[in-house]
């Protein structure tokens, strides 16, 4: 019906501005447009998909060739923006920073004094956006991003992370694989008995997917399916809260410190990576595929442009490992306050020793061949990570079509070989150097003892005038 006259505008009540806005600006056109806009977006997307190229890039391997070493009498200065994750072993570099060991090899850590704190979710962005140069990261994690951020590489391992357990509540009376096997039960039967205990109970696992291989393996060996539990996947901080509040029956935190926190209040492991390593046949891919290693990660470009700095940084990491293994009582207290401040827990020296003895055992330089050169070793990096990469491809986390393998991510072989070569070269030159220039030779020896074989060789070369 048409209006015959200006409606009683003068007599209208004052309108609410919001109401006015919607009435004057929202017309049927707007509703249609909203729907139409969405539809058009979808159409355009389809058009682009037709002409787009959607391949995912597999990372390239890196081979820098033989290292050229020039003689020198001092160590060039460099800056490394170091990041630290809030976990025990990942923050091991703190020991080097507090003791000035990085400075001794010419490296200034930025930002002072202890680098930058980095959360799990920030590692990739910070590396990709070039906000940090190096960070001690996890092998199981870096492979998950290998096609998404193909330039990220890991140059070595400091320790092995064995701390993947299923923990049971203190008063649960649950049976453990270890006690069953020690008592004479067969491993496979022990696995089934122990895993059956989870059926119908509240189980809390970490939400990162980093330990998926371990869980898959124990579920398979135990012949249970996650759908049979009351399963929650959640981050470590909340998991510890739930456990302390008695709101879960079984749990598996991702971080060593968090595991220790629960172990201290009576939670105990019913099954862990060690059980698999002990119970399965040697070098069984099922067991090794559950392992995780921690070591420095960086951008490929940083390694290519700062090869010597990276070698020096690695040497500090090895020096830290030496200190932890040989003299834990004097070395570890330095890391304690840092660990407490980043995890929010409170730990004693014994707790931290436990972390490095049982959960994250470090590997000294001499033994590193089991990772990088001894291809038959169960912990050879490809033996551990190729199956994990495959599992990720099957699981849809990495693209199935891509041709991926561990050598595209782990550069430890080249780096370790470089250091082995340098060590050998130094040992060749050592006695000559001492004869020719006792001072320089002494400096070279110090560097060698601190695992900095690069500068040991440089000083030795200078001492022998080569």
């Amino acid at each position, binding site marked *: 019906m048409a209006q015959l006259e200006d409606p009683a505008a003068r007599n209208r009540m004052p309108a*609410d501005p919001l*109401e006015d806005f919607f009435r004057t600006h929202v017309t049927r056109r707007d509703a249609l447009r909203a*729907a139409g806009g969405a539809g058009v977006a979808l159409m355009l997307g389809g058009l682009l998909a037709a002409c787009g190229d959607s391949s995912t890039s597999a990372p390239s391997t890196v081979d820098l060739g033989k290292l050229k070493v020039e003689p020198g009498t001092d160590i060039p200065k460099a800056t490394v923006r170091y990041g630290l994750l809030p976990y025990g072993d990942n923050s091991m570099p703190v020991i080097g920073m507090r003791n000035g060991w990085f400075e001794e090899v010419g490296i200034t850590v930025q930002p002072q004094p202890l680098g930058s704190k980095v959360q799990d979710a920030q590692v990739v962005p910070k590396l990709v956006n070039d906000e940090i140069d190096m960070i001690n990261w996890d092998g199981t994690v870096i492979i998950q991003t290998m096609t998404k951020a193909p330039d990220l590489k890991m140059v070595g391992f400091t320790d092995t992370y064995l701390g993947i357990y299923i923990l049971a509540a203190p008063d649960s009376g649950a049976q453990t694989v270890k006690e069953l096997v020690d008592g004479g039960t067969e491993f496979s039967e022990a696995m089934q008995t122990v895993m059956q205990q989870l059926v119908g109970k509240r189980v809390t696992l970490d*939400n990162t997917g980093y330990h998926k291989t371990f869980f898959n393996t124990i579920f398979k060996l135990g012949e249970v399916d996650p759908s049979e539990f009351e399963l929650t996947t959640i981050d470590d901080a909340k998991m510890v809260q739930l456990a302390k509040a008695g709101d879960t029956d079984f749990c598996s935190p991702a971080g060593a410190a968090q595991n220790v926190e629960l172990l201290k209040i009576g939670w105990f492991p019913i099954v862990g990576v060690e059980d698999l390593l002990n119970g399965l046949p040697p070098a069984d891919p099922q067991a090794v595929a559950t392992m995780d290693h921690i070591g420095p990660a960086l951008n490929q470009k940083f390694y290519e442009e700062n090869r010597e700095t990276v070698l020096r940084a690695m040497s500090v990491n090895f020096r830290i490992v030496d200190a932890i293994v040989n003299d834990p009582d004097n070395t570890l207290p330095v890391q304690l306050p840092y660990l407490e401040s980043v995890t929010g827990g409170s730990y004693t020296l014994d707790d931290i020793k436990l972390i490095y003895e049982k959960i994250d055992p470090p590997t000294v330089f001499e033994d590193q061949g089991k990772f990088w050169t001894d291809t038959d070793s169960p912990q050879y990096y490809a033996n551990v990570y190729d199956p994990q990469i495959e599992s990720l491809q099957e699981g849809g986390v990495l693209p199935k079509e891509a041709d991926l393998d561990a050598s595209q991510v782990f550069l430890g072989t080249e780096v370790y070989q470089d250091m082995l070569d340098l060590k050998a070269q130094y040992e060749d030159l050592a006695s000559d150097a001492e004869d020719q220039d006792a001072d320089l030779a002494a400096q070279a020896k110090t560097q060698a003892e601190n695992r900095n074989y690069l500068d040991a060789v440089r000083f030795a070369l200078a001492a022998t005038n080569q």
Partner: protein
Amino acid sequence: MEALASHGPTQSVRRRLVGPGLPARLLDLLLGIIGLGVIIGGWWLLSTQMQAVQLPAPDVVWDAMWSNLWEMPALSYATFQSGGIADGLLYTTENVFIGVGLGLVLGLATGLLMGRVRLADGLLEPVLVALGTVPVLIMLPFIVTWFGTARLAQTGLVIFFTFVTTATVVRNAVGNVAGSYEQSAAALGAPRSMVLRDVVLPAIVPEVLGAVRVCFAAGWGFEAIAEILGAQHGIGRIIQTMGTQSATPELMASVLWLAIVAVVVDGLLVLIGKWAIRWSE
């Protein structure tokens, strides 16, 4: 006559550009398409300059949107759950509707009470004003502490925001209605209950609808954030997991689907609103 004149310069500009032959609606649609095309084109250009993990190309995200809709292997890998983006969307959408619904009922009741009963208004107004100044996200830790990861924890923010907004809008609207319509109704002999039902409630519908629209728009965001921080299901959960895996295309795909749902719901609200206030000038 004035009633037929254009709504300002836009219409006359349109006529000059296009001539009398092309209907305004078609032109709007074309302009919309061009605008979107520019955005997507810009996105595509930018993505060639950045790494895939920072900004994937539009076609990659498009693929991710469809291949992850019903099943999301990357999600199942980390969470042991089956289902894809659609399942997450359903959970999130349910929560938003429940949250807005509850907040609406509580806010309506409170606003009416405050608008009609002096004592209630005196008591509650300072409370409402104080609550209105609280940045909603600040409430999240409280809600998590009180409700854990239960469904209520995720809808809590939505309920809170909707309640505060609706109560305030309704209280003010009722204040506007009183003194004019109410007097008229009283002089026609209507008892107080009839005044509430037949006069106050219909009179405030336009304001309430405006509030509902705003609450939904904000609700999607609050719900997603609450889910990111502690849910077992929902779009926020998916976003959090994809973030952990640096799976940027899947992450963007999830966000885009959420945006589409939000736009569709808003469109429906507008249509419903149009019908509900078809009597208004």
